[in-house]
């Protein structure tokens, strides 16, 4: 096994009104990890720690085999970083930015940069001031991609993009990991993007990781089970149930550890299964956050 691209162990970072606690995370080469959390969950803080832009209070952070923030200069040579608050210089053109990044990035690939210009429908001569929001996002992404970094750290790369621009961006990310030495970590509120292209998914809420798994295991283990209860019968106690809603003789149970054994467990109580539904990542995310908060607040 080669060394992971990202490894966080027991990382903590406290601010006056927010604390990131006990962060353990691992991203392997060739993988895309989706980082999902409500606003203020700690996604951007975690990405800033990975970039060495913040220093952790405790715990170890290794990125591309380098200890952060100590060896950040060496690590950053192979990282492409895009965040919402990154600004391009308004008085210049995209071509000016491309020349500038090329001059500081020895690995800049001008042929790939030109290809990205075409795929993103951008024009190098365009003034930055005249770019739309979507074009600006694609421009910063182009600048991050064109030196072919081994790790892409993207903070909300698809937020505010129209459907066509989103499609172009997701296609480019999938294209980047055709090289299996590369890896991507991206944060998003858009669970559909995450569900579509991520290999691994991490949920963050209130500064803690509340779930981190490979996507297939994730989607496979959650189900909504619709039951018809026997007259004056109670809903069965299913393993992994995070929510049970009973209305008359109808019950809906949400479980996070579905197996076919659930059928036997229901039938033994006299309940009849009417439907077993898979859930979208968005539904799973909301159910996870809600059940976690109920446990915390109890």
């Amino acid at each position: 096994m080669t060394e992971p691209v990202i490894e966080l162990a027991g990382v903590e970072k406290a601010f006056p009104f927010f604390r990131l606690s006990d962060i353990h995370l691992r991203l392997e080469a060739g993988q895309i990890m989706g980082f999902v959390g409500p606003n203020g969950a700690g996604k951007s803080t975690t990405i800033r720690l990975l970039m060495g832009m913040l220093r952790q209070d405790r715990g170890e952070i290794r990125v591309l085999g380098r200890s952060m923030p100590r060896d950040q200069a060496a690590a950053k040579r192979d990282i492409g970083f895009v965040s919402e608050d990154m600004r391009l210089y308004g008085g210049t053109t995209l071509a000016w930015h491309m020349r500038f990044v090329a001059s500081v990035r020895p690995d800049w690939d001008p042929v790939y940069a030109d290809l990205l210009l075409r795929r993103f429908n951008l024009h190098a001569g365009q003034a930055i001031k005249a770019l739309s929001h979507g074009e600006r996002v694609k421009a910063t992404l182009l600048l991050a991609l064109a030196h072919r970094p081994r790790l892409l750290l993207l903070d909300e790369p698809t937020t505010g993009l129209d459907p066509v621009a989103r499609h172009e961006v997701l296609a480019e990310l999938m294209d980047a990991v055709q090289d299996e030495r590369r890896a991507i970590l991206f944060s998003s509120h858009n669970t559909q993007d995450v569900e579509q292209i991520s290999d691994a998914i991490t949920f963050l809420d209130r500064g803690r990781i509340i779930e981190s798994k490979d996507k297939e295991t994730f989607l496979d283990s959650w189900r909504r089970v619709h039951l018809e209860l026997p007259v004056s019968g109670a809903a069965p106690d299913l393993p992994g149930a995070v929510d049970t809603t009973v209305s008359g003789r109808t019950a809906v149970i949400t479980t996070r550890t579905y197996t076919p054994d659930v059928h036997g467990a229901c039938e033994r109580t006299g309940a009849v299964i009417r439907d077993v539904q898979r859930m979208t990542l968005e539904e799973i995310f909301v159910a996870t956050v809600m059940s976690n908060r109920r446990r915390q607040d109890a």
Partner: protein
Amino acid sequence: MHSGLVISHADPRPMYLQIMDQVRRRVAVGDWPPAFELPSIRTLAASVQVSVITVKRAYLELEHEGVIVTRQGRGSFVADSAGLSARLHHQELDTHLAAAADVGRRLGLTQDEIEVRLREALRRQKEKDV
């Protein structure tokens, strides 16, 4: 390489099942003949824009079903077994029949009642063809 596979987000089935289905269909109709080399996992993932792990799972399960074979380091190929295309057509029918049998059972119908309904469906189909 353009695979011709398409993932639909309006389809309630998980993405790996959609991929499996479309690969099976291409094999069944002969677009992808025996020993045909499938796109690599990463190429297909990039072409349909779904995670590598999802395509990997689809290929693994297709391998278990005997539809494709994967040779370590060389790629994945359509299985070279006789009658695979016919078997896939039958398999598709069996899947639908199993689902119908399941619904019948849940509705509390007897085997005879289900059979009567199947014959009825066949008769209606025949009338439509005339």
